[in-house]
């Protein structure tokens, strides 16, 4: 693999992208930028519109409105598409009767890539041994690796991977993380989608979070780890809620306690004492990443979008 200088990389630009499939609004007015030299996580729950967004970037799906560019150009305008953007979308884009080597050769031929590169990428992803087996007999993890081999064929500046760790074993996941980071360290642009924050948490430097086709957060992971909550409870929850609210806190009930934000534990205790409410619990907690993520994408226990968190309220306003 070539080494390259950081700074000469390729930026991905998504501008006001929208896509409707009939009445289904898959992506709504989505804008964000993906910078070279780092791994960007593209997060959202199932059906959030990740795959659709990536397919619009790659010219496979026509946006209803808006545009997505690679270094300022649309995918269809790229002179050497595979040498510019490497893509692994789903673990199912294979003819089951073709061997992995032939699968890659078919597309290497189309892109004018030397057959020797096929053997090289098969080696990189650890499939050399199985290269002449028909893909129909591959395990999910092996297909995922073959998808990555396809992405690497043109030694591209940009890698776009849709849930690349699906079906990989723990060792494979660890290898993938290190691999993506080394690619980014070479100055490449790496965009990785996932529906699990935990899965990319150790890998990504930057995240874009979408929910129901809309952007709800774009920034560093550190920026996500916001604030603290007070976990507080009493046998008289109604009275406690009143007391905390009048002290300026936002209160949210959970199964085993109330969660109060915008207030410190000391202030919460004082407010309860002043209102004469006996407390059974008072703890300060830092909000975990996963919880912030879930709040942002608005998935409540009942599965409907909450629509009340600040982020969602802001973008849908």
């Amino acid at each position: 693999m070539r080494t390259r200088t950081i700074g000469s990389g390729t930026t991905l630009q998504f501008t006001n992208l929208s896509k409707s499939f009939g009445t289904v609004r898959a992506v709504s007015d989505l804008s964000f930028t993906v910078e070279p030299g780092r791994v960007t996580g593209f997060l959202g729950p199932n059906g959030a519109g990740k795959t659709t967004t990536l397919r619009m970037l790659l010219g496979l799906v026509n946006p209803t409105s808006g545009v997505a560019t690679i270094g300022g150009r649309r995918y269809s305008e790229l002179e050497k598409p595979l040498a510019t953007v490497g893509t692994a979308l789903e673990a199912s884009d294979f003819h089951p009767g073709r061997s992995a080597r032939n699968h890659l050769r078919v597309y290497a031929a189309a892109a004018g890539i030397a057959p020797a590169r096929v053997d090289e990428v098969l080696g990189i992803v650890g499939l050399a041994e199985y290269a002449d087996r028909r893909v129909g007999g591959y395990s999910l993890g092996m297909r995922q690796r073959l998808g990555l081999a396809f992405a690497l064929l043109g030694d591209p500046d940009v890698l776009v991977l849709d849930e690349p760790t699906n079906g990989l074993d723990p060792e494979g996941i660890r290898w993938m993380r290190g691999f993506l980071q080394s690619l980014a360290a070479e100055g490449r642009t790496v965009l990785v989608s996932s529906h699990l924050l935990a899965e990319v948490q150790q890998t990504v430097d930057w995240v874009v979070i979408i929910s129901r086709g809309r952007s709800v957060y774009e920034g560093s992971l550190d920026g996500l780890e916001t604030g603290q909550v007070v976990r507080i409870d009493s046998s008289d929850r109604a009275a406690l809620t009143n007391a905390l609210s009048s002290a300026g806190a936002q209160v949210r009930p959970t199964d085993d306690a109330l969660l109060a934000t915008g207030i410190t534990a000391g202030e919460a205790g004082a407010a309860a004492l002043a209102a004469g409410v006996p407390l059974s619990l008072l703890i300060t907690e830092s909000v975990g990443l996963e919880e912030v993520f879930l709040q942002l994408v608005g998935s409540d226990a009942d599965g409907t979008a909450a629509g009340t968190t600040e982020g969602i309220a802001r973008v849908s306003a």
Partner: protein
Amino acid sequence: MIGALRSEFRKLTTVRLWWVLSLTLFGYVGFTAGLLAGVFGSLGDQLASSPNAPQLPPDALPPLIYSTVTAVGYVIPLILGALSVTSEFRYQTLTPTFLASPRRGIVLGAKVTVLAVAGAVFGIVGLVASMGIGGSILAVSGIDPQLGSADTWLLAGRVVIASALWAVIGVGVGSLITNQVASIVVVLAFAQFVEPILRLGASIWDWTAAVGKFLPGAASDALVGSSIFTSLGTGTTSVQSLEWWQGGLVLLGLGVVLALAGFLTSWRKDVT
């Protein structure tokens, strides 16, 4: 374009379908041609003495038998062409295909070109069967297989062209009916039932025959210049036939129209 051509060529030769269909064609045509040569070769005298039987001078036999490649075998290059498209939809290989060649029209053009060549090769495979097996049996029956005649080799050339055009039509059919099973069912139903019935029906009156000669199978037989269907019909019904080059143009036009229609519909759709 060169890359796209190479890619389509590799797609065709790296799965078994190509070999399976070649063997099927060889077996099907070889069997039919052998059977016809055997029946007409040994029964020729009896047929000639019976006034109600189809009249076939021995000279008409070799072209009739050699042309079984397209007369009965055209469905095989047609299916090859259709499958070359439907399998891309079925296995979602359009995704990597369009990633490697984002200009979809070029991909379709390359596919049409490669399938035309593949269809021509199928024509040759079929001719090896019909001329090899059918011709040998004729020779054994004491009938001149006419392998030295220029007309025979002209017919062989036109068989190759017809077979190439059928594969192109297949690409068009597959582009319009992208569901693999539906596509094959439609092809088989049309080739085995609909078209033969229409051709038979069309031969009842002169004005229907004038329309019927434009049916793709009839056009194909006209292009090749001989067919078991037209030969057996002679004298009993009002079969009409196009000139050979007109037949070729009908097939070519059909292929182009179908491929264009496919391009404007399924090929431009979102790939999800």
